[in-house]
């Protein structure tokens, strides 16, 4: 297992470096540089001031030095300041990350709570009305855009219950109840989309496993249906489900961008969208890199979990 972990870690480092090169390169491909475009748009800044800001932001250095400097800033957790607010990026991130983490974790939990039991039910009652309902829910979950679902939820919650998303974020430690009120609907919207693919995967793997010899043996021993399904079948069926859940982490992170914007949650996604709209490129490149690093790390964790669950993987 150690060798496998080491090998996977060695593979993750170059991927992250390449991602950082892509993000850095992307921010430098625009004609002129970010600042010229930005100031050209505002139109009220002189050449001298522009040169000073460029020097302050180290944009006058050669590209390779800028890259190495940025890389060092990222590794040493001091990614610089926002062009617009002047606030250190770490300060904005410290406020935004807990919001996104809570939203993503809650969405994942809600998604799994819905997906796994319905997937099992769909498989154990194959081709019955409950199976059809489960499958229709799964397909619609994959096709409904989360920004539409979110807008509809807000629209009808406002019409029927006169509920509107609270302005001003309340942390979990300040008031758990108000915090949950704020997060439940957005997490449900995000979780619904995640549950669709998991539900489909659980159904197909449980169906596969239910046809295995050891499940037939379990039935033949006269075990209770629930024990056969949950203890014998589900345990093995869940291994590919871990991969599917892992594969959805990217969707989850991208989904937070939309859901946070709709429900006015001050998380990473909203911070990134705002930075993009204001062309605050230090914030954009830091946030995008952070999302990439999170995704690579989470994928690594999923791969390691998978190898731990299924010993055949690590000996390949």
């Amino acid at each position, binding site marked *: 297992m150690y060798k496998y972990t080491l090998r996977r870690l060695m593979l993750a480092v170059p991927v992250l470096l390449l991602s950082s090169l892509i993000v850095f390169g992307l921010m430098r491909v625009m004609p002129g540089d970010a600042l010229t475009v930005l100031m050209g748009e505002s139109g009220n800044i002189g050449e001298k001031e522009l040169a000073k800001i460029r020097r302050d932001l180290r944009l006058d250095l050669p590209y390779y030095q800028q890259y190495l400097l940025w890389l060092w800033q990222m590794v040493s957790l001091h990614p610089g300041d926002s062009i617009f607010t002047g606030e250190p990026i770490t300060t904005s991130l410290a406020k935004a990350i807990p919001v996104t983490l809570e939203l993503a974790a809650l969405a994942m939990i809600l998604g799994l709570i819905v997906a796994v039991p319905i997937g099992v039910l769909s498989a154990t009652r194959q081709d019955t009305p409950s199976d059809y309902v489960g499958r229709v829910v799964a*397909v619609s979950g994959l096709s409904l855009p989360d920004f539409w679902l979110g807008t509809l939820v807000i629209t009808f919650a406002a019409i029927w219950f006169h509920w509107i998303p609270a302005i001003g974020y309340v942390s979990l430690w300040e008031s758990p109840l108000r915090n949950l009120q704020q997060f439940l609907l957005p997490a449900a919207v995000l979780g619904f989309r995640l549950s669709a693919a998991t539900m489909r995967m659980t159904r197909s793997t449980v169906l596969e496993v239910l046809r295995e010899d050891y499940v037939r043996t379990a039935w033949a021993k006269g075990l209770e249906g629930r024990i056969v399904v949950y203890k014998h079948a589900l345990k093995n069926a869940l291994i590919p489900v871990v991969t599917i859940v892992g594969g959805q982490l990217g969707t989850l992170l991208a989904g937070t961008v939309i859901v946070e914007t709709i429900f006015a949650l001050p998380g990473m996604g909203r911070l990134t969208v705002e930075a993009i709209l204001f062309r605050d490129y230090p914030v954009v490149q830091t946030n995008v890199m952070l999302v*990439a690093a999170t995704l690579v790390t989470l994928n690594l964790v999923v791969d390691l979990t998978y190898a731990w669950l299924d010993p055949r993987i690590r000996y390949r």
Partner: protein
Amino acid sequence: MATVNLRAAPLEAAPTVELGRARALWIAIRRKPLGAAAAALIAIIVLTAVFADVLAPYDPLAARPEIRLAAPSWEHPFGTDDIGRDVLSRIIYGSRISLWVGLLAVGIGTVAGMIIGLLSGYCEGRTDLVLQRLMDGIQAIPGLVLALAIVSVLKPSTTNAMLAIAVVIIPGNSRIVRGAVLAAKQNRYVEAAQAIGCRHPRIIVSHILPNVTAPILVIASIWLGNAILIEASLSFLGVGTQPPTPSWGLMLSSTGRAFMEQAPWLALFPGLAISLAVLGFNLFGDTLRDAWDPKLRRG
């Protein structure tokens, strides 16, 4: 170099793929009514986009403030928006943007992905290593976030959104093509072509490319739905199509959200159009996959 015993292993005839594929698709559509429904849905969307001028009852940009936020009626089946524009006409014209962006983005992404995949799979070695690590680097960034970053660098517009979506599509496509090329290279007729001294471009075009078209078409059809979804998401966030051009995502974010309590139809219909388009392409992609490439079913 591998030796090929031509007498013992006669050259396998390249299958007459085109006729076979059309038949396989027809059989799959007949067997699976859902596939037929998806094909019909796509046909309706395409026809709507092509004949938007004829089908739209009103000018999508003509404002009539006297009937602003009018509820759905016989005159305006999907109601009107905040400045009195007919929502149905805007949705009909919006299909053009969605399809145009989807087709072009998938077209560019597929061709670029195919070239990279072909080079990667055919050359192997260092070229493969460098290209595939680069693809890993792009794939490490979630699609929507990458598209957002690209659009932020260029400038919010429909064309830039399309380019951004194309970049997002490239890595996945290159992977699929690379896999298919590696498999196709194992065929004896490719080895034979190398043995008799065929040039690389000819081997790639005549012997390998026909083997990778099926997976490419399947993936492209699935990506079409996703491309429409990403375009709508970008427009929803304000960095895709710009007003007053009718785009489904933009309609939902601008008027749909602002007037959601007074006029819920403004949020309902554009979202429904996006969902149906995405559903149609997803289901059609599934059908194509079942018909042409059963190996991809679990992928």
